[in-house]
């Protein structure tokens, strides 16, 4: 599974979305499931899945799925691979 697919799976699981849900266009707080509490679970799940440490500012700035892929790239994980 590509990093991108793994990230999608993390999003679906952390935000309690159905298995096939399209997450690529998601933005923080644009859906009720992605609230501040879910945001913390999501960040923790990303840290576990990709073995990275996300700092406070990165967590606050991760306001969309697209930003999450950028964040992974910043941590040396190419989402396309």
């Amino acid at each position, binding site marked *: 599974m590509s990093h991108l697919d793994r990230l999608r799976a993390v999003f679906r699981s952390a935000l309690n979305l159905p298995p096939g849900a399209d997450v690529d266009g998601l933005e923080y*707080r644009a859906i009720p499931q992605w609230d*501040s*509490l879910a945001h*913390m679970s999501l960040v*923790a799940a990303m*840290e576990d899945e990709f073995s990275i*440490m*996300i*700092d*406070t*500012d*990165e*967590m*606050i*700035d991760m*306001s969309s799925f697209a930003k999450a892929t950028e964040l992974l790239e910043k941590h040396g994980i190419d989402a396309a691979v």
Partner: protein
Amino acid sequence: MSVVTSVFTLAEPDREAALVPRLAELTERHRRACEPYRRILDAIGAAPAYERVADFPWLPVRMFKTHELRSVPADQVFRVLVSSGTTGAPSRVHLDREAAAAQPRMLAATLRAVLGGRRLPMLIADTRSVVRDPTLSARGAGVLGMMNLGRDHTFVLDEQGRVDTEAVGGFLRRHGGEPFLIFGFTFMVWLHLRGLGADLSQGTLIHSGGWKRLAEQAVGNAEFRRTLAEECGLTRIHNFYGMVEQIGTIFLEGPDGDGLYCPDFATVVVRDPETWEEAPPGTPGLVEVVSTLPTSYPGHVLLTEDLGVVHGVDDGVWPGKRFSVLGRLPRAEARGCSDVYAQAEPGAVVPGGARAAEPGEAVVGGRGGGRV
């Protein structure tokens, strides 16, 4: 990685020089964009030029309970923070996307001075249910706002409100030997942390919410700090003061417990409640909080109902004013102050006289609270 820069750098003259033009800009922006604010300024005759921070017109913080004060069109409102006052009307604070994004960043930037940029393992002197409640309490909002700064969030109390010794023990086994963060409301910390019998010496405690409940037990800041040091080994303790009407801005206690300090984008003016002039250091008065963060509502200069005192200026561990909050202004005295505005603006109804927020309402970034 983000650039780690301190927000505790500006000595008072530099701070004044930086704040005055920014506050003037905000005052004019809000005057143009917020009709009730414009009426208030007109009524009190406030007009430029403003030479000092203390020259700017202030709004009594209670105005957010009685007026819809926003400087952005309704369709640009991204979040409305609503305080959860136990009586009276709640405060409503309108944030557009930009203001909503700025506030957690600036809160984090302020606390970075004592926590660093890493999210630390976090022990919370509260129960998990406080953040799960769909009608989030102010306390819950406060906890939630702080949780951004932590990881492996562990609650000291179980769902029934009893100390969860197993969870705390597990947390300390995992993290007790490294820097970790403890957060709680002042009275919750006092009630539940002391009895843990745990070594919290690697922890940094951040607490807020006011001293009223502890003052009833004759516990002040000095005893609070001394007791937690003696009983838990906690030596890194930082109280903070903030309110939902200026969300994202907190005034943070210095490492030595010698008062609250202002981040570079904020300051306080303590005013004599008789003359409204700025009181000199050492003389108590009403606390006016000043911050450049409120861009979507006219909350940049707010007169609180709290009594405070400036201890010194540019004389502490961080630059700027060093102050303490002494408690609520007694009801009768505060009424006089709201009368000023009731007269200034005929339409301004100030229900409930000078009723202050309940102590439990005081939250992170928020006396009054609101989901962060």
